[in-house]
């Protein structure tokens, strides 16, 4: 346990960050010019960190696997970003945002980190507006807000359904300004394949130029990973096709602890799987649950008929519908947190009430017909239309819905060929976000000196379940406002170090290993393509390490993944060579790492004998099927140390001390 020092500053919760900032070491501007920092990943966390570090005067080398930093997957975030501005005067405050996030995370995150996050949230909005991010505004010209699941205030800032895009383009523009000045050296189409550690400190990376295949050495005084989450271990997820765990996993294999890998968010509202050739899943924003009602048929025979295509949702009478969220959780209804909504959907489908004709009948209705009627009647009143026809009301209501969610409805129609204005949407939970990640202390430093992890890549702020509109907040908080301070404290000791050489034996050794792994993959001459293994891994994860986990299933998953990994190395076929653009080789390397991470993930889930947030163990539930936390034994972070293979990983525990919040059973009933 002594190995894990979270370095949380002393003092009252609300003063910790201020006191910390007042007491850290600073690097003078002249010395910053002599210090290099590598930032891997250019999403909200990596992009904002790279820009800010460069503004401060450090020499930044930024890496992304995409052809431009603007394409990192933060761009796909739809709903919004939370900030405790209290512009609505509805009682919001730093403390409330902190409290909601701690509770939403099912009391499995660090108080001090989350408080700091809530504290800097307001700066993010100010900063983004100054950068020209076009947030939604009301007619008075002031910023508009909306509400998200699991909270009782309106604190979410948004830019239609494209908030992530606009925030990322803001960070990208800040990067561009520094690239133009030569303060950021940008390496597009580069993938980090290892971290280099010299005398116990992270001093550089090995990266592959994805266009030429060249293996390159890059040195720096510190390395920052903003490389996102590992949801693609499930093959099908809302992540981008290229999203991967390689950078984080390589860091883990070099000694960085991996924390809480089993905490994964399965988002309730995604478009269901349509067939075995499907490559990815698409999210329908949580904001839809403001107006959509979720239901399945109350009768098994109706569900069967819907799947067969002989019965339509509109023809099922009101009394034959089961609005199961409203039934089970009357106070929060359709706006329960994501983990609760997802599990409830699975429960109904497992019982045979699913409405989609795929292998597992996985799908439920998300229905806007009552909202359309409600808004239609309101509009008719506002417009002074007396005695409006049913058609008129429907048309008026549909136009209100279109104003609110038009782009999402269009996307749904494009993908499914169904018109959601006329018939209920079909949705099902899908893997969306991973709360677990590299273990970091209060400084966002991993247990490797000089190696930092920010944004989704670290584990620190969301506990066992993330609330909506909090990922964007954390990514930008880490990159703009936290890391730039904390890294200075570390780099202050490096002002006399001088340039880090890439000729050291450590660099040579790391490069050699990377080349050997690549050579193995391209020369393997197996019979099965990479996707075969990735899909198989995904199925094991989804069926046994997904929304409901059991001892038996997890044990099976562990041995099946280990066997699959062995088969992968024996039988994978990677066409083409190492010295050229080779997308199959890129995929193979990423899947190799997922095959290790998946096993650790299942082990972590097995070890955590309780249910909390996104982690649900069938053995630990209340009488009415809700998650049963076991605070006496599991109020800790599980941080895993790599020792050769996932089955030999050593567990270290960091106890979570709650001094300001009382641990309660989460209830949304």
């Amino acid at each position: 346990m002594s190995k894990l020092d979270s370095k949380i500053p002393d003092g009252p919760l609300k003063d910790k960050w201020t006191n910390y900032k007042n007491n850290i070491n600073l690097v003078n501007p002249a010395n910053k010019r002599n210090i290099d920092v590598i930032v891997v990943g250019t999403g909200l966390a990596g992009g904002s960190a790279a820009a800010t570090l460069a503004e401060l005067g450090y020499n930044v080398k930024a890496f992304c696997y995409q052809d431009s930093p603007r394409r990192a997957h933060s761009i796909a975030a739809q709903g919004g970003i939370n900030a405790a501005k209290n512009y609505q005067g509805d009682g919001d405050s730093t403390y409330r945002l902190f409290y909601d996030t701690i509770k939403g995370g099912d009391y499995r995150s660090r108080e001090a980190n989350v408080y700091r996050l809530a504290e800097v949230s307001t700066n993010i909005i100010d900063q983004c507006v100054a950068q020209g991010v076009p947030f939604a505004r009301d007619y008075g010209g002031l910023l508009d807000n909306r509400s998200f699941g699991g909270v009782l205030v309106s604190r979410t800032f948004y830019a239609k359904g494209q908030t992530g895009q606009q925030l990322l383009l803001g960070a990208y523009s800040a990067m561009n300004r520094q690239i133009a000045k030569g303060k950021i050296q940008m390496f597009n189409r580069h993938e980090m394949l290892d971290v280099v550690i010299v005398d116990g400190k992270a001093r550089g990376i090995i990266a592959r130029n994805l266009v030429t295949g060249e293996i390159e050495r890059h040195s720096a005084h510190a390395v920052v990973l903003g490389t996102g989450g590992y949801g693609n271990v499930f093959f099908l997820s809302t992540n981008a096709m290229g999203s991967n765990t390689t950078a984080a996993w390589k860091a883990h294999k070099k000694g960085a602890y991996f924390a809480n890998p089993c905490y994964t968010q399965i988002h309730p509202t995604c478009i269901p799987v349509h067939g075995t050739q499907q490559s990815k899943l698409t999210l329908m924003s949580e904001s839809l649950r403001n107006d959509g009602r979720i239901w399945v048929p109350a009768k098994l025979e109706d569900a069967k008929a819907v799947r067969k295509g002989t019965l339509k949702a509109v023809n099922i009478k009101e009394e034959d519908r089961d609005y199961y969220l409203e039934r089970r959780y009357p106070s929060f209804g359709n706006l329960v947190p994501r983990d609760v909504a997802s599990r409830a959907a699975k429960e109904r489908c497992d019982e045979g009430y699913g409405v989609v004709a795929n292998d597992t009948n996985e799908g439920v209705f998300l229905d806007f017909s009552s909202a359309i009627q409600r808004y239609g009647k309101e509009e008719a009143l506002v417009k002074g239309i007396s005695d409006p026809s049913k058609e008129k009301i429907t048309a008026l209501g549909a136009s209100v819905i279109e104003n609110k969610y038009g782009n999402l409805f269009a996307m749904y129609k494009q993908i499914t060929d169904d018109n959601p204005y006329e018939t209920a949407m079909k949705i099902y939970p899908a893997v969306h976000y991973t709360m677990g990640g590299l273990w970091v202390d209060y400084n966002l430093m991993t247990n490797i000196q000089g190696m930092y992890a920010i944004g989704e890549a670290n584990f620190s702020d969301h506990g066992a379940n993330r609330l909506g509109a909090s990922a964007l907040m954390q990514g930008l908080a880490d990159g703009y406002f936290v890391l730039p301070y904390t890294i200075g404290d570390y780099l202050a000791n490096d002002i006399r170090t001088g340039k880090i050489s890439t000729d050291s034996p450590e660099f040579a050794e790391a490069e050699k290993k990377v080349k050997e792994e690549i050579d193995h993959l391209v020369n393997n001459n197996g019979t099965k393509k990479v996707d075969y293994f990735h899909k198989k891994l995904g199925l094991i994860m989804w069926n046994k390490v997904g929304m409901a986990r059991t001892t038996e299933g997890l044990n099976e998953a562990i041995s099946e993944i280990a066997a699959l990994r062995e088969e992968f190395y024996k039988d994978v076929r990677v066409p083409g060579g190492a010295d050229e653009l080779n997308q199959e080789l890129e995929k193979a390397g990423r899947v190799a790492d997922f095959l290790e991470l998946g096993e650790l993930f299942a082990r972590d889930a097995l070890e955590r004998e309780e249910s909390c947030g996104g982690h649900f163990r069938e053995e630990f539930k209340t009488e009415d099927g809700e998650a049963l936390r076991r605070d006496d034994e599991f109020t800790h972070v599980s941080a895993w140390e790599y020792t050769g293979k996932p089955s030999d990983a050593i567990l270290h525990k960091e106890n979570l001390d709650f001094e300001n919040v009382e641990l309660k059973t989460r209830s949304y009933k």
Partner: protein
Amino acid sequence: MSTVKTLNLTLKIWRQKNNIAKGSLETYPISDISPDSSFLEMLDILNGGLIEKGESPVTFDHDCREGICGSCSLYINGEPHGPSRLVTTCQLHMRSFKDGETIYIEPFRAKAFPVIKDLMVDRSAFDRIQHAGGYISVNTSGNTQDANSIPIEKENADEAFYSAACIGCGACVAACKNASASLFVAAKVSQYALLPQGQVEAKDRVLNMVKQAEKEGFGPCSNTGACEVECPKGISIENIARMNREFLSAAITK
């Protein structure tokens, strides 16, 4: 959904080993494609078959597959992002094609977008245009003024958003007979021109970005409007008119 008949197609795909090799259109038959599959899933299936046969799979850019990252491109049957409107290639579905159809798939073509391999092109010229002025010079201090201290007329804020919705895919360039980047540049210029925060550097911004676009080898705009038609995000050519006004006024007064 799954009861629909599958499609058999002939694909004519541009293959080019690298940026110096000479490329050519190759023919690939493909069968049993579900109309619910996306266009890129269809290419995944093709590639799976090629790998199994020991042939080299087709290289193409793609990432989010949600129509927002701007990675995917492809010139499909003579149109950037294919036949549907307001849709990127990754959101194009096979139900837009008929059984037995021949589909031509080429890279986005422009002098400023050199082919890297097969259907993948180098669009870094767009990044360099942004380096030339696609930003507001404000440091991340945490001490900027309160976000609500300057009210912005809703109409302008909304317009700025519509301009900022550009995903930088390059369809506008691929659609243009002059391979002009005007719509792309204009979208960024407009976003900032419509916001008070963007005013301070407005003149330098438009001059520098337009200059950089010319330097990259993009052609001039001749107002055909093809870019607007093919833009998957529906960016209006009114942005180009606004950019031209901004440019003119900057050129005269600067």
